[in-house]
């Protein structure tokens, strides 16, 4: 920074205004082109799933951009009872919901302790909790499969919920700790000076302030649990208990060579729609939650 920048115009030829205009036009043009490319990249496969799901079985291999004719046949078949898909959706909701609730309750307490209390081995404990999130799912599944077989937990909800906590708790603790650390301590301190106990300060001051962070964490945890596959696949083989992601992976047609693609796409759309709605409504929060850890 020893050099003082000399303000010399970089280039001022005679045709500068025109060139600048052209350059600007081209620039915004290329920006929009890039954005269009991103949109196509992100949405085209999903759009193809949506379009295919509305085709009749007879014209499932059509390559038109819109279904012709439009048909809800696949959706009716998905719910006609033979596939237990409605039950599978309910199972997914129960498993993901309970996992999220449990991870949040445990996560809030742990995050409060880590962000607000003084105690020994704190950074070690936080480090261990974060490190557990990189534990491969299969390394949880293999031993627990055996344990759950022995205690008769196979084909139960808890056989999915408890292992799900192995990724849900680190996620919740990590997010909530980052969030609570960012909240000022002054308000709680003021409340305690005014005679609140630590617990009251937590419940009446911190918790309402942390509500957005709790909510963001809930969304992320729910999406992760809803998308979980390997645990649900291993712990359950009874179709009445299995979750939606496992159920659609097992959709098979009459013969191996006649996969019911239309129904699979319809089921895929149904499983994805709740997530798409969440993404549309809460996109800002989701992005915040995803990036808060990485950019602090």
């Amino acid at each position, binding site marked *: 920074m020893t050099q003082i*920048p000399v*303000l010399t115009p*970089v280039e001022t030829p005679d045709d500068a205004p025109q060139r600048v205009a052209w350059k600007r036009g081209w620039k915004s043009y290329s*920006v929009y082109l890039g*954005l269009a*490319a*991103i*949109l196509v990249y*992100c*949405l085209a*496969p*999903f759009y*193809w*799933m949506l379009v295919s799901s509305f085709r009749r079985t007879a014209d499932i291999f059509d390559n038109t951009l819109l279904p012709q004719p439009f048909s809800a046949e696949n959706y009716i078949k998905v719910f006609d009872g033979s596939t237990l898909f409605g039950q599978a959706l309910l199972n997914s909701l129960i498993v993901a919901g309970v996992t999220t609730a449990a991870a949040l309750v445990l996560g809030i*307490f*742990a995050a409060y*302790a*880590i*962000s*607000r*209390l*003084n*105690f020994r*081995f*704190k*950074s070690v*404990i936080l480090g261990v909790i974060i490190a557990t999130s*990189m*534990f*491969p799912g299969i*390394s*949880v599944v*293999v*031993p*627990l499969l*055996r344990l759950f077989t022995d205690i008769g937990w196979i084909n139960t909800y808890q056989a999915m919920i*408890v292992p799900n906590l*192995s990724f849900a*708790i680190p996620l919740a603790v990590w997010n909530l700790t980052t969030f609570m650390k960012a909240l000022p*301590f002054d308000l709680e301190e003021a409340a305690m000076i005014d005679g609140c106990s*630590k617990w009251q300060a937590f419940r009446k001051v911190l918790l309402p302030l942390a509500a957005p962070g709790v909510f963001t964490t809930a969304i992320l945890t729910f999406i992760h649990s809803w*998308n979980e*596959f*390997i645990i649900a696949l*291993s712990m359950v083989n009874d179709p009445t208990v299995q979750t939606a*992601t496992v159920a659609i*992976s097992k959709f098979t047609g009459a013969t191996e060579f006649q996969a019911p693609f239309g129904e*699979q*796409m319809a089921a*895929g759309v149904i499983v*994805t729609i709740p*997530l*798409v709605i969440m*993404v549309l409504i809460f996109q800002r929060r989701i992005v915040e939650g*995803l*990036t808060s*850890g*990485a*950019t*602090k």
Partner: protein
Amino acid sequence: MSTRTAAASRPTPDTRPPGRKKSGKRSAGEGRMAAMLLSPTLLVLALVIAYPLVSALYQSMFREQSGLDASGFVAEGEIFVGLGNYTDLFVGESGARFLNAFGNTTFFTVTTVALETVLGLCLALAMNRAFRGRSFLRASILIPWAIPTAVSGLLWRWIFQSDGIANSLIGSEILWTAEGLTAKMAVIIAEVWKTAPFIGLLVLAGMQIIPEEIYEAAKIDGAGFWRQFRSITLPLVKPTLLVAVLFRLLDALRMFDLPFVLIGPGKESVETLSMLAWDESNQLRYGSASAFAIILFLYVALVAIVFVKLLGADVAGTKEVRALRRATRTRKAKAL
């Protein structure tokens, strides 16, 4: 942050540096309260992480007996084989299968993470220049991330059908989902599609905290787009990018859902370590399944440690902690 320094240095009340007592004194009561609040979490993690780890280590030293014994009865139970399951990883038919799965896992991890990083950077650069329609763009970029991997496997299997849209778009008749290199390519394409936006989002967040003035100064100095990217953007998003890449590396190493649904279980060309371990436990061969699970765990841990040590990815904010500790220590020394 202030709490960490206190935890690290255990000061008596007089030596505590002034201005760092935001969280109050550390008392026995607080320690007890922390223990109470943390114990449920640690207990659950002990059950779902520590127990499986120990149990897998133990089980990996046994092997299920199969077939008939000398007197013609079906042999039941397990025999202790020590490290037999591990030494078997490199010999014979099962050894070949393990090495293949190990190779596939490594191949998928390296190729997908490399492609995702490049593509994610491009996505972030393009989005960083957009001003209008940013929220719509952000919502659409979240969709590949939000789609369950199992559904995305199904979706790409449909796209890669022999008479599907992929072949008719490029005018070929490739059997994508059959065994071979094309199956590998199908997995890589589907995986990159789903995860590049994730890297893009993280990197974009890193780009948005770069002050605009730096770019303006660079522009005045005559730096072009490429030069700005190399000398400003890349070094400043590097910490974020490294964390994103680390997350993706660890995730790619345990890849299971996508090849399982897209290509199918037990396919040699796409079988990963997770799939192999799952298949073994499905066959009730818990011993070797546990050995594979342990190997995968060690592999993941090794990659994480090497990555953090070599590239200095600051995942848990440890550098900050260390710096703070050092500061506290010097301050304490001065106070004495």
